């Protein structure tokens, strides 16, 4: 199967799974007693956070591979995973305050996990800004790789620092009713399928851009 067919299948799967997840969230999962309907954001908030972190971890691995092997494909993979990961972290930062508004009574609280996500978001904003500014620079890919590696090493330290600094915390352990757990499980797969489809599509677009660039350089 070609990559294109794979991606099409993945998109179809993502559509079905996300439809199923949404249906389960609204019609199957019970309403949480304390927080009410807003708690349902949880089913997309948490999987998005996990998907975001996994993608940024992949971006870190691909950045190391790029510096090590010097293969431009790794650079494109690093860029792709970072971009899609950034989108999911953005989803976390948008859904978090909506949930927080009803759970804590404020749009934003300087809570460790949410704040860490915000700092990560800032780091990657700078990463894309750098990519934008340095796109005519021969070392652009190397520069970006170095930044991605530093940012990744910083994440645990940022998290620890924010934890000591702040006071309000996420619940350490969440107890879920079986229907909630099943819904969460489906939503998790749905979000990850969507993340994979987005990443691969973005990768194909990147490859197409490379081909176009090569053609442009080849024609006198």
């Amino acid at each position, binding site marked *: 199967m070609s990559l294109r067919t794979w991606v099409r299948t993945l998109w179809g799967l993502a559509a079905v799974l996300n439809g199923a997840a949404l249906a389960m969230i609204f019609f199957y999962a019970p309403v949480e007693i304390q927080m009410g309907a807003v708690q349902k954001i949880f089913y997309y908030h948490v999987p998005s956070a996990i998907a975001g972190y996994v993608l940024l971890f992949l971006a870190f691995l691909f950045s190391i591979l790029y*510096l090590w092997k010097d293969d431009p494909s790794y650079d494109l993979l690093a860029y792709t995973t970072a971009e899609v990961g950034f989108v999911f972290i953005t989803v976390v930062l948008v859904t978090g305050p909506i949930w927080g508004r009803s759970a804590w009574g404020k749009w934003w609280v300087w809570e460790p996990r949410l704040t860490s996500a915000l*700092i990560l978001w*800032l*780091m990657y*904003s*700078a*990463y894309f*800004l*750098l990519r934008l*500014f*340095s796109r*005519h*620079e*021969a*070392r*652009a890919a*190397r*520069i970006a*790789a*170095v*930044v991605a*590696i*530093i*940012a990744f*090493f*910083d994440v645990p*330290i*940022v998290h*620890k*620092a*924010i934890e*000591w*600094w702040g006071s309000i915390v996420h619940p350490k352990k969440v107890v879920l009713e079986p229907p909630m757990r099943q819904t969460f499980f489906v939503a998790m797969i749905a979000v990850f399928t969507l993340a994979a489809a987005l990443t691969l599509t973005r990768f194909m677009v990147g490859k197409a851009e490379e081909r176009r660039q090569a053609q442009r350089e080849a024609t006198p």
Partner: protein
Amino acid sequence: MNYVRVVALIFAKDFREELRRKENVISSLLFAFLSLVLFAFALDPTQVDLNRTGSGLLWLIILFAGSLFMGASFRKEMETGTLQALLLSPTDRSAIFLGKFLVNLVFLLFLEGLLLVFAYLLLDVQTGPVLVPLAVAWIAVTVGYAALGTLFSALIANVRGGQVIYPILLFPVLIPLVIAAATLTQDALAGRPVYTSQWLRLVALFDTLFVTASVFLFEYAVEE
């Protein structure tokens, strides 16, 4: 030539150059002083006790003025072709990094010392009695700051608009260091223990991790 001598030579060259060129040193110091004066107007020291709330502000000044200085440290090398020559010379590249890093470290510590003097003179921040623990904390924080500042400065040296991106790139990564610096300074000023603080351990971890990472990654940052 042995490694230490190469580092010392590069340090001496850069140090002399900064002193002779003056513009970089003076503009950063003036900027820091100006920020201090502006903070006095923004906060009204007759109302706010800066001994309790000033530590974070002092570190903001160090962050801004320091990045002004470090952001330029590789630019002129690129423009004059010095970096090219250094890279061509048969030395370990990490020696070039360490030389630069030491110059930046020395400048930042000098800036911090002056800032403390002026914070005392103008804003009555009483650092005299706690100078030793304060110095330990600030030196520890400055090591990590200078390491990443030097590495990122090498990264953006040739990038169009690099001066603009530099602080945007550097500050988010430094956030844990800034929190630690503000907390440690506040603790020192209040007479609370500094050496046993968990924050000092976090700073030590940060320093070890990022000095090592910078030494390794510098080579990739400058390679053409």
